[in-house]
């Protein structure tokens, strides 16, 4: 900074000049011709994807003479004689013909009209008076069978279902009465499937219930459904596995229920627990044997593979590799050359024994590592330091069987300086 001052250069001159240079070209790029910058920015600052004016339109030929006139018109859809005005496009002095173009949209429903005679004969009902029925039909005509509106407008309070019921039963009776023969109207939708009031009421109630379900309800329902599906699948699987192991079953079921209903109050009754096993090859020996027995035919090598998988399921990938390495070192093929029943059994036993041996080795190594790390904790300290003395009583307590390796580790770590950790690890590596 000082140097620049000395040299007489302004410290920000370099970068600022670049900024100034970059801004003007950008600005001029942005600003299009024809419209102002702000207006262009309204469209998002980008040119539109499609042209708003089709270039083709501009090229049309203008042969005809088109003028526009303000003329009166009538609407055939109206019942009164109203005259209104609008702009009319005149082409070469010729007026457009035809009815008002929107008149064709005036559609309405054809409501049946019954005579008083017909009413007396077919349509009487204890729940309905003639006046009410007439009113109903009148409203139906006016409001195009929009029963919600009709129900609202109806003088006495009737539910939508009641009105519908009355309307459709009247209609049905009329249709049947007016039909020349019963065969004619057999295909009429109302004859085939008459309106069912109770069903409709039920349906609407169910719909409203579904609509008004809270989130919680939905979640609970989903969980129950998943649980039910899982149980159905369990049942299917258990049908295949006729021979079952109850121990495995109770464990599996306990797991399933715990997972599916986390902290829920007793779920509905359709969640039953089938007391049958789920044969899966990776769980344990008994279920593997059971599943093998379920097969009508299998190869000995397949059976061995399944059993090996089970025994490997408790071990990690590295341990499995060590087992296989050990087998090779002992001169044993990973897949026996002559897989008879006896050979496969021996092979399996050998694998298990190797696994046990490796696990034992690991345990001993851990313990020895801890031991030597304790020893190394004394490094650099005089024998008289109280730390040593506290070590010895601690390790004497290890005389009894210790279940958790983790406990031992924790104790060790707590009392040592961290530098000592590295040494026992190195020793372990050299051991192997």
């Amino acid at each position, binding site marked *: 900074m000082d140097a620049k001052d000395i040299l007489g250069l302004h410290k920000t001159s370099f970068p600022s000049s670049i900024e100034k240079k970059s801004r003007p070209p950008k600005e001029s790029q942005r600003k299009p011709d024809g419209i102002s910058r702000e207006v262009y920015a309204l469209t998002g600052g980008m040119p539109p994807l499609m042209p708003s004016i089709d270039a083709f339109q501009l090229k049309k030929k203008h042969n005809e003479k088109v003028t526009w006139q303000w003329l009166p018109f009538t609407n055939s859809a109206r019942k009164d004689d109203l005259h209104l005005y609008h702009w009319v496009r005149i082409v070469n002095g010729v007026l457009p013909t035809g009815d008002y173009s929107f008149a064709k949209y005036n559609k309405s429903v054809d409501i049946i009209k019954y005579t008083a005679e017909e009413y007396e004969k077919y349509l009487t009902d204890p729940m309905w008076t003639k006046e009410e029925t007439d009113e109903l039909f009148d409203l139906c005509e006016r409001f195009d069978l929009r029963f919600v509106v009709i129900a609202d407008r109806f003088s006495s309070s009737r539910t939508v279902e009641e009105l519908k019921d009355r309307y459709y039963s009247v209609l049905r009776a009329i249709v049947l009465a007016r039909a020349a023969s019963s065969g004619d109207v057999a295909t009429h939708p109302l004859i085939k499937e008459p309106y069912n009031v109770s069903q409709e009421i039920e349906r609407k109630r169910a719909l409203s219930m579904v609509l008004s379900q809270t989130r919680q309800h939905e979640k609970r329902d989903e969980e129950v459904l998943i649980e039910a599906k899982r149980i159905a699948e369990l049942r299917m699987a258990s049908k295949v596995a006729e021979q079952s192991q109850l121990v495995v079953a109770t464990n599996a079921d306990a797991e399933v229920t715990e997972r599916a209903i986390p902290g829920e109050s007793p779920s509905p009754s359709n969640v039953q627990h089938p007391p049958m096993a789920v044969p899966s090859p990776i769980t344990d020996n008994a279920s593997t044997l059971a599943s093998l027995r379920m097969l009508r*035919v299998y190869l*000995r090598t397949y059976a061995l593979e399944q059993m090996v998988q089970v025994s490997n399921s408790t071990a990690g990938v590295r341990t499995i590799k060590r087992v296989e390495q050990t087998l090779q070192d*002992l*001169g044993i093929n990973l897949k026996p050359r*002559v897989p008879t029943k006896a050979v496969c059994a021996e092979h399996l036993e050998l694998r298990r024994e190797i696994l046990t041996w490796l696990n034992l080795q690991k345990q001993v190594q851990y*313990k020895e590592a801890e031991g030597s790390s*304790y020893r*190394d904790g004394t490094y650099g300290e005089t024998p008289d330091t109280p730390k040593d003395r506290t070590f010895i009583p601690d390790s004497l307590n290890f005389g009894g069987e210790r279940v958790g390796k983790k406990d031992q580790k924790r104790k060790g770590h707590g009392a040592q300086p961290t530098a000592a950790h590295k040494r026992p690890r190195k020793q372990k590596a050299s051991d192997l």
Partner: protein
Amino acid sequence: MSHSQTLPLKKQQAENPSDDGSSAIKPSRLKISLPSEDSDKKNVNKRVKDVEICLPIVYGTIAFYLGRKASESQSHKWTVYVRGASNEDLTAVVKRVVFQLHPSFNNPTRVVESPPFEVSECGWGEFEIAISLFFHSDVCEKQLDLYHHLKLYPEDESGPQTTKRPVVIESYNEVVFPEPSESFLARVQNDPAVVVPRLPAGLNLPSPVPIDSRNDNERGDTKDHPLSQWFLNFSEADELLKLASARQQVLVQAHIVKLRRQLNLLEGLPPAKQPSGYDL
């Protein structure tokens, strides 16, 4: 799984009389004097629990280099086959074998209905052959699939190929039937190709009905097969010995480790790996 047992049985019964005369060739065939009765028909659907029938087989390929007669497209003559491990006749259990060859072969699906269950071809390429074993209806409704990679070229590529020594790759395996039907068990009880364990006492099996075979004059076993000199030997005893010695070694090692662990626990102080200069 449903079994339609009665229909095939009837068929066998009808053709039995013709079978009796020429069945002397096959010692494994049991001659029946009485046709099956109704009670037996009901029993044949029953399965025998806790009995497992085992059929040891060997399957593989033998490939010969054709030498002077070799061409670009046909350099080797090879045979893929399935045989009994002791070269006995498999037809009491196996109905037919289907070999699925490489699609470049004519009619790559070769169905072999009678022993010897093999297919011989000429070709130049190595590929995986799918071998499907189909069993008689009272044995198993499902087929069993095996896979074998055809090898034409020997492992050590030292020198030119010889027409005298073929490349032989065989695999031993055992087909296990965990809960055989009574009729199956009755039929193969004394079959040399099949390994049947000691049967539980008091087991009443129906009278066995032998399977009708088409070629009564041809042998089903492969003891004198033209290629039998190349068949490999699969000795269970060798494997067992090796395994036993391996287990012994492992047990010894494990024992040593266990002792070490016990020492650790007894002493309380784990022994040092290296004598450290900072011992108390």
